[in-house]
């Protein structure tokens, strides 16, 4: 082997190695993207209501008023939306409360101790519709924002 030939083979080897590296890199990237797309479409996590900003703020009274007068249009406005609602706590259980006996709120965590019947609070949660049996608007996955009185 001459010195020239030796040099040629090594550059060729280097070229080959580079090609394989690029190939490996591309296929790896493809696999990762495919997995990410799969995860995103089939296993994406649920909405995090607590971290979403409220779409609107409203009192328990006017919310109930809207639902009881025209349920269809109120549903269109509020269903599945994150809403901040203010009202006086009229009843409470371990993880739910009612505001002015008009809005039924299910909390995402057990109710904080500071929430007492008769005090006014503003909560944030997802509106799931109007319960005609209880005649109350229902909110789930709620978190409290502030005491308002």
């Amino acid at each position, binding site marked *: 082997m001459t010195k020239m030939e030796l040099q040629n083979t090594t550059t060729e080897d280097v070229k080959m190695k580079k090609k394989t590296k690029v190939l490996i890199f591309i296929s790896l990237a493809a696999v990762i993207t495919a997995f990410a797309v799969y995860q995103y479409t*089939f*296993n994406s996590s649920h909405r995090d209501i607590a971290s979403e900003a409220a779409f609107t703020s409203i009192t328990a009274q006017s919310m109930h008023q809207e639902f009881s007068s025209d349920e269809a249009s109120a549903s269109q406005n509020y269903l599945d939306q994150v809403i901040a609602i203010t009202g006086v706590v009229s009843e409470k259980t371990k993880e739910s409360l009612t505001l002015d006996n008009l809005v039924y709120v299910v909390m995402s965590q057990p109710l904080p101790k500071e929430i007492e019947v008769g005090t006014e609070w503003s909560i944030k949660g997802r509106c799931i*519709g109007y319960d005609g*049996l209880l005649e109350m608007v229902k909110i789930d996955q709620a978190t409290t924002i502030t005491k308002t009185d």
Partner: protein
Amino acid sequence: MKTTKSLFTILLIVAGFTSKSALSQKYIDTQGAIVFEASEELFEPVKATNKTVSMVADMSKNEIAALALMKGFRFKNSLMEEHFNENYVESETYPKAIFKGKLKDFNFSQWQESSAMVLVEGTLKLHGEEKAIETPVTLTRDGDTIRLQGSFSVTPADFAIEIPKIVRNKIAKEIKVLLDFNLTKK
């Protein structure tokens, strides 16, 4: 005149008492649970829970009514939940499922045992369709609360819900619905 007046007062009081006792036969649950299960073996479980179902039972008339808001059904898989709401039950158009029924051959005022098996007959309305339901439920008494538990089966076709061919073998033909309510005297 005086006697008629006092008689009238007595009548009023009696009427007041009877209406009060009739009212106190009302039992309510605001956070009952419904689970539905339509899983096929080897495939991802198709299961959802709604823990915000309300029920009103008037024991003096043996009447029960329950209401579930469709948006309250939670799935483990968020995509499944989205498909359930948007493509199958169309919860924007039909936001609730309502059951109205009767407890058959049950006499609440003479009920002594701690638990009883009672047949419930009624109609379930969802997705704009009605289906007659007949199922036994267990009533368990604990002080002023009554626990109602039971299950029944329905099919998507009962409520005109079409399952696309592509997922047809991943969703059970018969969907099992489990009920669990804790009714408190109101």
